């Protein structure tokens, strides 16, 4: 039996898992409309391949993965694309993103699919299949799976399947393991083959005995070295880093690839999807979603990607006092900006929330540095210090204190007696730091371009000066020669072409002026005095800069 390790901290929030495990996984009926976002994965947004009006079949590629980290997007059923446009998606910002609207024709007609025998294929081919099948991590991270299966520099000894599912309320992995254990195991075999790993460890929290039993049964049928390990129920034991630690004792620091340490970790649902994609050529067009919380029939549903959340909760019998919806669990989930947003690949759970179910936290008191947060932090951080720095916007200090090792599990906020929204402060600080880094990169690029331009201008000036000198010399020689011949009308032919060009320029400017007058630019008339002042200001500044620039440019010559 494998020896288990412990990770620091952790909490035991009430699990609320029994509510949604009473009935088997049901299939959600076809909705009237699907809204499929093109950006459902980590990395670059997929490039749309279809236009409004196109008829598509189920599983047809509608979004092509773009460069590097990206994944494919498919039509979840057969029907007509009615719109490609910006729609509100499941994102904390509540901002719209590019989506395809698909009206199903009801036939649910598949494209032609062809599976492959992975053992007969090349690793790269299998990965290409996964990439084009849009397979991404279904535990919530939605990282493209094909990239995680690419053989790296280090040998991967252990493949870990994550069936811990530590978040309260969520049971989709539990139900999947109970009902489709054999497909998960077969998917694991493919991954083990691709990674050339020695063993497969499946970590399942010990509060899911049925899933453990089903998985053990399925694992017996496999020729691979698979062990199903019951791990203690402790949030966030299902975090990839924490599960790796518990099963192998290896700690994967932030910013380090787990493969560098000889382990790779996948969610169980990802394994099942990989199996379907490789064996049957089925792209990722649906997933299991736990619908729970303030609903009359909490259960797990197989839902087409793009199904509006409102349809899903309506099917589960949402209760009237529901005021908002959460995608994911109560610890790390995302409040949905609207019920109209659609189920995406990351949506493992939809919780209908009511003020009674999740009462708003009492007002936040100041931090008293009681360090309960530090006691439960699985990343072994000092959350009270991070909070102190984030609050004061001392981002450099926050980074020094390992802000980016924070996995935003929410354990600190959960235990905080002052009820401070700690994770919010960390999210705020992280996104500020990222924005600053972007700005910094942009500033560095601008500096390089500016300096290059300065150099270029200097060079051009020099070249011009050289040319002028050469011409003057030539002219002088010519003059000398002309003087020898001693004829007068030498000046006119030189000036004529100049006049000609001058006239042409004049004409062009005149033309432009007429054009400008014709279009009547809006921003020159009816200016507020303030705007006028600003313009005058800019002009003055420019004049001064020109002056400065010219003096500076001239000075080296002297």
């Amino acid at each position, binding site marked *: 039996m494998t020896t288990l390790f412990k990770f620091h901290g952790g909490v035991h929030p009430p699990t609320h898992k029994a509510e949604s495990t009473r009935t088997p996984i049901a299939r959600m009926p076809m909705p009237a409309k699907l809204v499929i976002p093109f*950006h459902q994965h980590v990395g670059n947004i997929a490039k749309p391949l279809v236009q409004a009006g196109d008829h598509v079949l189920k599983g047809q590629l509608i979004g092509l993965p773009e460069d590097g980290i990206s994944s494919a997007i498919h039509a979840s059923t057969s029907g007509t694309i009615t719109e490609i446009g910006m729609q509100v*998606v499941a*994102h*904390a*910002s509540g*901002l*719209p*993103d590019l989506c395809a609207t698909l009206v199903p024709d009801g036939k649910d007609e598949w494209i032609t699919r062809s599976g492959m025998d992975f053992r007969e294929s090349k690793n790269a081919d299998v990965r290409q299949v996964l990439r084009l099948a849009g397979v991404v991590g279904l535990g919530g991270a939605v990282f493209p799976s094909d990239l995680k299966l690419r053989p790296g520099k280090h040998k991967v000894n252990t493949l870990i399947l994550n069936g811990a599912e530590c978040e309260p309320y969520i049971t989709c992995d539990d139900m999947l393991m109970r009902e489709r254990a054999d497909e998960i195991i077969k998917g694991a075999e493919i991954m083990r083959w691709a990674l050339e790993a020695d063993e497969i460890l499946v970590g399942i929290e010990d509060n899911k005995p049925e899933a453990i039993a089903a998985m053990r049964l399925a694992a017996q049928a496999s020729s691979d070295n698979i062990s199903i390990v019951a791990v203690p129920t402790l949030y966030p034991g299902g975090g990839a880093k924490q599960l790796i630690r518990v099963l192998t004792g290896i700690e994967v620091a932030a910013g380090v690839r787990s493969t560098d340490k000889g382990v790779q970790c996948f969610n169980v649902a990802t394994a099942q999807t990989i199996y379907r994609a490789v064996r049957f050529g089925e792209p990722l067009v649906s997933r299991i979603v736990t619908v729970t919380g303030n609903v009359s029939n909490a259960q797990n549903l197989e839902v087409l990607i793009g199904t509006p959340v409102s349809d899903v909760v309506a099917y589960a019998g949402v209760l009237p006092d529901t005021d908002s919806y959460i995608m994911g669990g109560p610890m790390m989930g995302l409040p949905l900006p609207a019920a109209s947003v659609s189920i995406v690949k990351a949506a493992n759970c939809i919780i209908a929330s009511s003020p009674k179910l999740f009462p708003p936290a009492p*007002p*936040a*008191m*100041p931090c008293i540095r009681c360090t309960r947060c530090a006691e439960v932090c699985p990343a072994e951080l000092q959350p009270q210090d991070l909070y102190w720095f984030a*609050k004061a916007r001392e981002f450099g200090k926050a980074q020094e204190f390992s802000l980016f090792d924070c996995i935003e599990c929410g354990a600190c906020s959960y235990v905080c007696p002052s009820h401070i*929204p700690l994770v*919010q*402060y960390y*999210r*705020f600080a*992280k*996104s*500020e730091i990222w*924005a600053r880094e*972007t*700005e910094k990169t*942009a*500033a*560095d*690029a*601008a*500096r390089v*371009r*500016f*300096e*290059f*331009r*300065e150099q270029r201008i200097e060079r051009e000036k020099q070249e011009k000066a050289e040319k002028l000198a050469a011409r003057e010399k030539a002219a002088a020689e010519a003059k000398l020669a002309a003087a020898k011949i001693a004829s007068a009308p030498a000046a006119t032919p030189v000036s004529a072409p100049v006049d000609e060009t001058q006239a042409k320029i004049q004409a*062009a*400017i005149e*033309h*432009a*002026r007429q*054009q*400008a007058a014709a*279009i009547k*630019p809006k*921003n*020159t008339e009816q200016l507020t005095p303030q705007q006028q002042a*600003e*313009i005058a*200001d*800019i*002009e003055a*500044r*420019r004049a*001064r*800069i020109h002056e*400065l*620039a010219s003096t*500076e440019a001239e000075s080296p010559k002297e």
Partner: protein
Amino acid sequence: MLSALLVMSGIAILLGAVLGFAAIKFRVEGNPLVDKIDAILPQTQCGQCSYPGCKPYATAIAAGEADINRCPPGGEEGIQKLADLLGVEFKPFGADTNAPKPKSVALIDENTCIGCTLCIQACPVDAIVGAAKQMHTIITAECTGCELCVAPCPVDCISMVVIEEKITNWKWKYPIYALTPAQ
């Protein structure tokens, strides 16, 4: 009296010699501070500080000739960073500098552009492409929002567009702190 003079001048000569030696030994070439200041400046090269670019402004600050509160694109945060680096007090923007504006990029109305290349010459970071009598356009990713191209345009076809918040550049907000007003 004489002994006092002798003693004092003896001390002075000795110390003078030591200092003279130190002056040669610890001579500093150039001013590495300029680069540190330049790294803080936003590199818009807009000249709002009345210097012809960020580097000249940095040089002026390092030499003590310019105040640290003359860079509107850097915002108050930029002033704070400069204050920290230089160990001086934070100084709010003066009346003679522009107020910081939301970050914008220039946009050329391509129907109006006559292809005069004046904006191309004005752009400090070569972010405008085009040739004479050809329509010009701005490489948005490289535009620093310095507004230097706006005024030279003879047909007023360049406008500054505030960068909109999109899902890709969205930031988490400062958490609302129920008991004390946000700073």
